[in-house]
């Protein structure tokens, strides 16, 4: 492959070299003014004039070098390209139905909800299910889990992994051995970790899911909104590039805060997800977990039903599903059994 600069005509190559812009990426991202600016050049180079047309030819050549040819939309259905749209199942059929198969391996999926509503439980279940083989809804790959708030709930994970093992005994998987946990409590070390150590992990082990629990805790303490926006963008940029390159799912956890406006039509509408519009645009899918005022009896315990709602997603319509959190993990709400036998039989 010839060098990009070598195949340009001579006077255009000189323009690029005189401002020390050597790669096609740098040519495209350097503003035109930098090529035309005569203040920093010596008298010798001023003699040869650089016109805007020359700069346009240079940029055009760089664009031609880097651009990909568009494909037609129906070739995206072919299996080779289809692997980019694979999904990680939740392990619970109601949730899978509602989200169209699970968490998609493109972009950032945001799960938001109030405290104690079950976000971490759902993430642990996802971390186990991603390790299942593809035919059972997983990706057969490991997990990178970055914890920013409390200690990682290892004992609960063990309990859930035992339940999953008993469900699929034929897959002898070392569930706990494929989950890599890291604790980071501040934003700058987190971004360093995500930018430096995470790519090394992704190269050495095959990772199918990256979890950050939670993003809100890191960015809530910022008072300078511009700086916060910049850090969020850097984090999201890194995560999205990994999702694209290694074809893994990325899940970030967000919290909710009450909006304090009098226009709320109910307790649910009063709470808005934290981190504002900036974070909302960086995420691709948003799911919201909340409690439902219904309860269900499972083995002498009264459990509150939880609801997962797809707030926005490019693939699925806005739907919701209900689930329970039991000792086995996240399960469907069982259908109600009739309490008494039907009237016909009782007459006998």
């Amino acid at each position: 492959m010839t060098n990009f600069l070598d195949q340009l005509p001579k006077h255009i190559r000189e323009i690029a070299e005189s401002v020390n812009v050597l790669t096609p990426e740098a040519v495209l991202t350097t503003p035109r003014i930098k090529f035309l600016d005569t203040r920093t050049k010596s008298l010798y180079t001023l003699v040869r004039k650089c016109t805007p047309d020359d700069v346009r030819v240079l940029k055009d050549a760089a664009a031609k070098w880097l651009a990909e040819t568009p494909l037609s939309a129906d070739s995206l259905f072919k299996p080779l390209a289809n692997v980019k749209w694979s999904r990680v199942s939740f392990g619970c059929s109601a949730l899978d139905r509602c989200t169209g198969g699970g968490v998609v391996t493109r972009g950032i999926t945001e799960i938001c909800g109030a405290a104690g509503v079950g976000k971490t439980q759902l993430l642990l279940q996802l971390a186990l299910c991603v390790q299942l083989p593809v035919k059972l809804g997983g990706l057969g790959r490991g997990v990178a889990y970055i914890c920013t708030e409390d200690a990682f709930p290892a004992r609960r994970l063990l309990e859930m992994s035992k339940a999953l093992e008993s469900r699929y005994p034929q897959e002898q998987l070392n569930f706990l051995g494929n989950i890599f946990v890291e604790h980071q409590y501040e934003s700058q070390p987190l971004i360093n970790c995500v930018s430096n150590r995470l790519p090394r992990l992704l190269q050495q082990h095959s990772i199918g899911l990256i979890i950050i629990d939670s993003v809100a805790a890191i960015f809530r303490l910022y008072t300078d909104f511009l700086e916060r926006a910049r850090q969020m963008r850097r984090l999201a940029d890194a995560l999205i590039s990994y999702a694209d390159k290694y074809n893994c799912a990325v899940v970030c956890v967000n919290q909710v805060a009450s909006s304090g406006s009098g226009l709320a039509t109910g307790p649910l509408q009063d709470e808005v997800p934290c981190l504002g519009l900036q974070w909302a645009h960086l995420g691709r899918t948003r799911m919201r977990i909340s409690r439902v005022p219904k309860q269900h009896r499972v083995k002498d315990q009264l459990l509150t039903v939880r609801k997962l709602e797809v707030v926005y997603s490019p693939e699925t319509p806005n739907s919701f599903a209900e689930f329970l959190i039991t000792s086995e993990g996240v399960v469907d709400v069982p259908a109600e059994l009739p309490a008494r036998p039907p009237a016909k039989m009782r007459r006998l």
Partner: protein
Amino acid sequence: METTFLSSNNINLFNKSCLDILRGEIQSKKIATGHKSLDRHLGGGISLRQITELVGNSGTGKTKMCLQLCLNVQIPKSAGGLEGAALFIDTRQDFHPDRLQELARDLEKEYKQRAPDFQAAKMLQNVHYVSCPNAVQLMATVLSSYRHLIAHPNIKVIVIDSLAFSLRMLDDGAQRFELLLELVESMRRLLREHEVAWVVTNVLTHRCIGDQFHVVPALGEMYSHLINERIWFSRNGHCFLGKSWKTSRLIKDSR
């Protein structure tokens, strides 16, 4: 591009009257958006040779409208459409072929009587897709889009979804501004030479004006002057037409 010689003999300015332009506009077809009131207010739909911006928060239907436009541009001439193709430039990987297929099937059903051989499978073939994960790729794709237009001259709409996302990832504000201007200049140059429509997607952001935060479209004030039409999407399904919030007009949803 034609070069004009400014000698007094062949100045070819001022040889088109307003009536000629009006006739040309009435005859040129527009791309239906599928939203009846919006089409009525726009005079038929999205016009060619213009940059139209769709702005709104996440989950309000911008990507859906972009997909719908890619399909509506293919409506056969016998049914009043443009019978063209579409190019979809995807920066957020929001594009999902299954969703496009669903919309294509719905459109096929809708046009079954008027145009029986408007097939969903052929519709998908006419949508060209390219993914641009960062700003550099986006610049490269937009600057070399003319090459693709020459190879496929029936492309009538080019969608960038979303323009704001790649550019906002750049840290340096000045560089972001310069690149945005270069992009828009390249888009306008393409509009002069080919008869296409650019459709761009944008998001809302907070901007500090005075001492208050206002919710405005991202990418800046200067950029607002460079686009031709702006359609706002809100969460309850309503559309607004107009460049700034104060001058926008509510288009009620009527299907």
